[in-house]
């Protein structure tokens, strides 16, 4: 396909790539949990995009809806959770309307996943080689031997020493960092266009976290894989992501290039978040801390969900809901940037 849409031209670095479709495009996604006491909206009108070869960081406090967004993309929302609105396209293909059977063929092949805890992500009863070969053969026509060779290649690629030997070993014989590398190798098995990485470093030692983020970055650039990197660690985002989405209470509050969001945050919530990063404490105005905690799903305030904690909140913030608008170099959902009164 040689069609060039304007969006591709905008993403200048992907000019060499003939594929016009973003790795991931989520538009107006809404996820609901029907409960006995009414429908809870966990994700509200989220739109984001990951270009091939790009790492999009998704940050926010616990409960912001980061994981649910990732699971919705993968089609792994657990009942009764359901996508109530919006569209999800992976490499140009709409996936939110697929049946479970069709999804099985897309998962692993067009989108892979890396989850938080590498210690529990692998089946303890199968050797690492068996799990790799299983995944590879599922998505390719390779023979058992060829799949084994590919498994070796993958282990080498994610930086596991002595892969021949490692292939025969079981997950419990690997350290946490090594296991996360195996998990990454599994996610890469069929060269998916998109990888959803949900807190891939949170469970690891600090020294190992950097190795894993470096690896992810390298793989992303080498394979032109789009990565949606979910984390609540701004430090990881600062080192890894190209662009950032900040989520609060199921909505996007700010989005922009990583350096702009970090150094030039526009939304009061993002400003608070940034002050929580120790390495950025040299900035003068970062002593502001966000008091309070994020509202629970069933008690979200009307208007801007951040208004009870926001130092700038005005009457309009308690009444209306702000939408994403241009705000400095970024986009932010805050009335301060809508020009009108708050």
């Amino acid at each position: 396909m040689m069609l060039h849409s304007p969006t591709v031209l905008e993403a200048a670095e992907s000019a060499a790539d003939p594929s016009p479709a973003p790795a991931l495009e989520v538009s107006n996604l809404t996820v609901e949990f029907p409960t006995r006491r009414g429908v809870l909206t966990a994700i509200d009108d989220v739109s984001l995009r990951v270009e091939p070869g790009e790492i999009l960081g998704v940050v926010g406090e616990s409960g912001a809806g980061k994981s649910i967004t990732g699971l919705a993309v993968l089609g792994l929302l657990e009942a009764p959770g359901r996508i109530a609105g919006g569209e999800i396209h992976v490499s140009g293909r709409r996936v939110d309307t697929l049946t479970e059977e069709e999804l099985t063929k897309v998962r692993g092949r067009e989108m892979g996943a890396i989850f938080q805890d590498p210690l529990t992500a692998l089946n303890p009863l199968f050797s690492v080689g068996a799990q790799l070969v299983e995944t590879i053969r599922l998505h390719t026509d390779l023979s058992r031997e060829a799949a084994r060779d590919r498994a070796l290649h993958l282990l080498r690629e994610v930086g596991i020493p002595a892969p021949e030997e490692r292939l025969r070993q079981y997950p419990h014989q690997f350290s946490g960092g090594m296991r996360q590398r195996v998990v990454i190798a599994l996610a890469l098995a069929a060269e998916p266009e998109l990888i959803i990485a949900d807190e891939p470093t949170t469970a690891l030692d600090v020294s190992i976290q950097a190795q894993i983020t470096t690896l992810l970055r390298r793989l992303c650039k080498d394979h032109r894989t789009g990565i949606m990197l979910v984390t609540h660690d701004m430090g990881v985002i600062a080192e890894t992501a190209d662009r950032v989405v900040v989520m609060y209470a199921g909505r996007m509050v700010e989005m922009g290039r990583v350096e702009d969001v970090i150094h030039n945050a526009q939304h009061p919530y993002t400003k608070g978040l940034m002050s929580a990063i120790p390495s950025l404490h040299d900035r003068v105005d970062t002593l502001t801390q966000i008091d309070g905690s994020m509202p629970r799903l069933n008690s979200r305030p009307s208007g801007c969900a951040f208004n009870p904690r926001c130092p700038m909140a005005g009457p309009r913030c308690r009444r209306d809901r702000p939408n994403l608008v241009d705000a400095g170099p970024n986009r932010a959902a805050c009335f301060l940037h809508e020009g009108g009164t708050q």
Partner: protein
Amino acid sequence: MLAFLIKRSANAIFVMLSVSFIAFMIFRFVGDPVELMLNEQATQEQRDELRNRLGLDEPFIVQFGTFVSNAAQGDFGISFRNQQDVLGMIAERFPATFELVIVATLISLVAGIPMGVITAIRRQTWYAEAMQFTSIIGVSLPSFVVGIGLILIFSVWLGWMPAFGRGETVDIGWWSTGLLTHSGRMSIILPALSLSLFQITLVMRLVRAEMLEVLRSDFIKFARARGIPARAIHFRHALRNCLMPVVTMTAMQIGGLIAFALVTETVFQWPGMGLLFIQAVTFVDVPIMAAYLCIVALIFVLLNTLVDITYAMIDPRLRGAEK
């Protein structure tokens, strides 16, 4: 591995000694065997002679020592009732019980595991609910009622299978098997079924609970994210992770089944150890009771060891424990 074996053996010996002590206490304190064996008119000499022959005039600890060392060599003395060698009598009956228990176990696994998987992955379907409901009946019906019901339906009304006995048997060495003849196979169906009914329910409920647990685990979520199809998720990844407790329970229950077989053997007049034991109880034939206890305990101990070995075969994490 060596340390493991030594520890296991020490354990096993301790358990066996405790059981033989209990068996011996029964031996010692349940009635006076001499009175039971001889009739009213026996003279004092006859009594003393028998008492001496049975070793009943020795001090307690010597008697226990003799009992243990004899038992270790398979000598449980002679039956009070018909003066035959006890071990020989039990050995003759053992194959019948063993085959019954094994067939019952197989039935419980072959029926229970798929039922457990289905009730776990097809929750809320009518057939899963029906199985769940039937299983409640399965646990609450006493085994003799089930046995009598089966006899009534399949033997009396339908006449498909014999109501009692073991059918024709074939001897292979000292082992007499009923599984090689048609009548033997027909005869084992009803007692094995009645013995396994409770078991099927246990296996099903265990597999169901384990499956539900395992299906919630991270590696299943990750397997789905890798694109593994549902069938492989359920039967390859999840079920295998449920087998460990099933193996344990099955092995432990084989011991239980041998004990339970008492009832089934009585209902179906199955010529096994259980029936022998029941007859021994009626006649206060203490050596047989003692031997039965020791042998059942030995089976329990052996099964336990087997469970540990099977564990290591299923779970790689336990394999290289000595490293």
